[in-house]
């Protein structure tokens, strides 16, 4: 890595004024029955990513999420693919993407005449739109102030709270000082920290939002009897959800928390934000919140994060579509064992090789390199995992029927 840190790089300007660090085509499918066609259209194309919703019944959270991804700053064009029977409307997704200045197209597989004609139609649309966005999307200079970065952790161990998450926290402090947006989530991994969290609120309104989100998360965990701590966490030395929580909270750094955003909401102004991805109480009951790490990453990307930081202790091999994922571990043993998957060894903080401040500065250089176009390790390996689930959040109650 270069000793001279560039502070500016070239990105892609969208018509809403936001700037992306990639210029991708997104294929969105609107029911599981269309998933094979969507993946086959994108197969072998590094700059064509896929997300989709498997349910036939629609769900407001899932639609909000997919619309946020279709208008994400890293996305230049959208191809929406439906089967033809499902509730979710691919034409609406394509129209809304077009209204945001993106190239877009859509079709129903049934209308095209099945798999083969759909693949031809879809591949042709991708080629056409790719040419268009390579030609037409303006290139602009970007700095840290243009970045929104989300962070979550997964496969945590005893090093995560000592090195991995504190390194990200120290980097988040720098990002906020530079005028950027930092988003952390996993409020179900902040159990036992009510007072610690509230003491970080930027103002009375933020404090109220944090208190509400915390109380809802505890009620959720008690109601569904699920706490966000896994066998791997225990094997890695974490004994309780409270202990894991304090380690996870370290990724928030030390800046004031401006407030709480929900899935598919962009931060209203720059600074540090908490994302509440926990389902709201609903007649279908809470459902599940973070069933896996990928679900949380999708939520962070939906808020406009152009880059995602993922902190692991035990080791993880996930990536993400739409926004490149940078993998940070606080465990040097894990870094050595899974070096092809790990971007950053924050375990050097524990050996005394690096100060926390130096680690944060080095992580910032790594973020800038990825923002400039260098693929992160999960990105280069082709990791594009996604997960869009049924969830009820900020959803008006349905008056008729019992849709999921």
């Amino acid at each position, binding site marked *: 890595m270069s000793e001279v840190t560039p502070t500016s790089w070239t990105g892609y300007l969208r018509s809403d004024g936001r700037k992306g660090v990639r210029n991708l085509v997104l294929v969105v499918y609107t029911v599981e029955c269309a998933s094979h066609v969507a993946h086959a259209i994108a197969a072998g194309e590094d700059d064509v990513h896929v997300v989709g919703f498997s349910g036939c019944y629609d769900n407001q959270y899932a639609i909000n999420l997919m619309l946020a991804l279709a208008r994400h700053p890293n996305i230049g064009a959208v191809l929406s693919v439906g089967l033809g029977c499902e509730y979710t409307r691919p034409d609406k997704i394509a129209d809304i993407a077009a209204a945001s200045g993106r190239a877009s197209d859509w079709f129903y597989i049934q209308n095209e005449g099945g798999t083969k004609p759909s693949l031809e139609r879809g591949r042709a649309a991708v080629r056409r739109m790719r040419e268009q966005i390579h030609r037409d999307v303006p290139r602009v200079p970007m700095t840290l102030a243009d970045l929104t970065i989300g962070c979550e952790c997964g496969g945590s*161990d*005893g*090093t995560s*709270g*000592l090195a991995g998450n504190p390194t990200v926290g120290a980097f988040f402090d720098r990002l906020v000082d530079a005028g950027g947006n930092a988003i952390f989530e996993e409020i179900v991994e902040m*159990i*036992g*920290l009510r007072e*610690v969290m509230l003491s970080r609120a930027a103002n009375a309104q933020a404090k109220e939002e944090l208190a509400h989100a915390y109380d809802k998360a*505890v009620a959720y*965990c*008690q109601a569904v*009897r699920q*706490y966000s*701590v*896994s*066998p*791997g*966490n*225990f*094997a*890695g*030395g*974490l*004994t*309780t*959800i*409270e*202990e894991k929580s*304090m*380690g996870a909270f*370290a990724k928030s750094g030390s800046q004031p928390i401006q407030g709480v955003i929900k899935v598919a909401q962009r931060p209203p102004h720059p600074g540090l934000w908490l994302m509440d991805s926990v389902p709201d109480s609903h007649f279908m009951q809470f459902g599940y919140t973070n069933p896996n790490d990928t679900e949380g990453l999708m939520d962070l990307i939906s808020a406009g994060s152009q880059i995602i930081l993922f902190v692991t*202790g035990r080791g993880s091999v996930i990536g993400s579509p739409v926004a490149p994922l940078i993998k940070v571990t606080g*465990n040097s*043993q894990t870094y050595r064992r899974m070096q092809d998957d790990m971007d950053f060894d924050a375990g050097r903080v*524990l*050996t005394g090789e690096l100060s926390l401040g130096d680690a944060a500065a080095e992580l910032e250089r790594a973020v800038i390199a990825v923002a400039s176009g260098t693929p992160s390790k999960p990105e280069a390996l082709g990791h594009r995992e996604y997960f869009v689930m049924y969830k009820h959040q900020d959803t008006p109650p349905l008056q008729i029927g019992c849709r999921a």
Partner: protein
Amino acid sequence: MPSTPRCFRVHPADNVATLLDDAVAGEAQLVGGETLPIHEPIKLGHKIALSDMAAGQTITKFGVPIGHASRNIGRGEWVHLHNCESNFDTRSGGLDLHTGAATDTKYE
């Protein structure tokens, strides 16, 4: 790796420290502090008791309660699922001590 395994106390109020190296029976060096006796292997990332604790006593790490002692714990002892319980999550007390695997889900 240094010959004496190190452990780290995050906050002055903590009564546990985190191992920075894998330790076998012998001693551990608290970073910037005393030497602790070790009677059993404790792995990197796991916790060691910095003082004797009575059953029910709050266990503190990062300066916040992370649970309570489910039985008496001696100084230098490994602190984990067998002697520390969450104040929120009741399932964690029933997991396998070494692997963390669930023992309450049926596979047949």
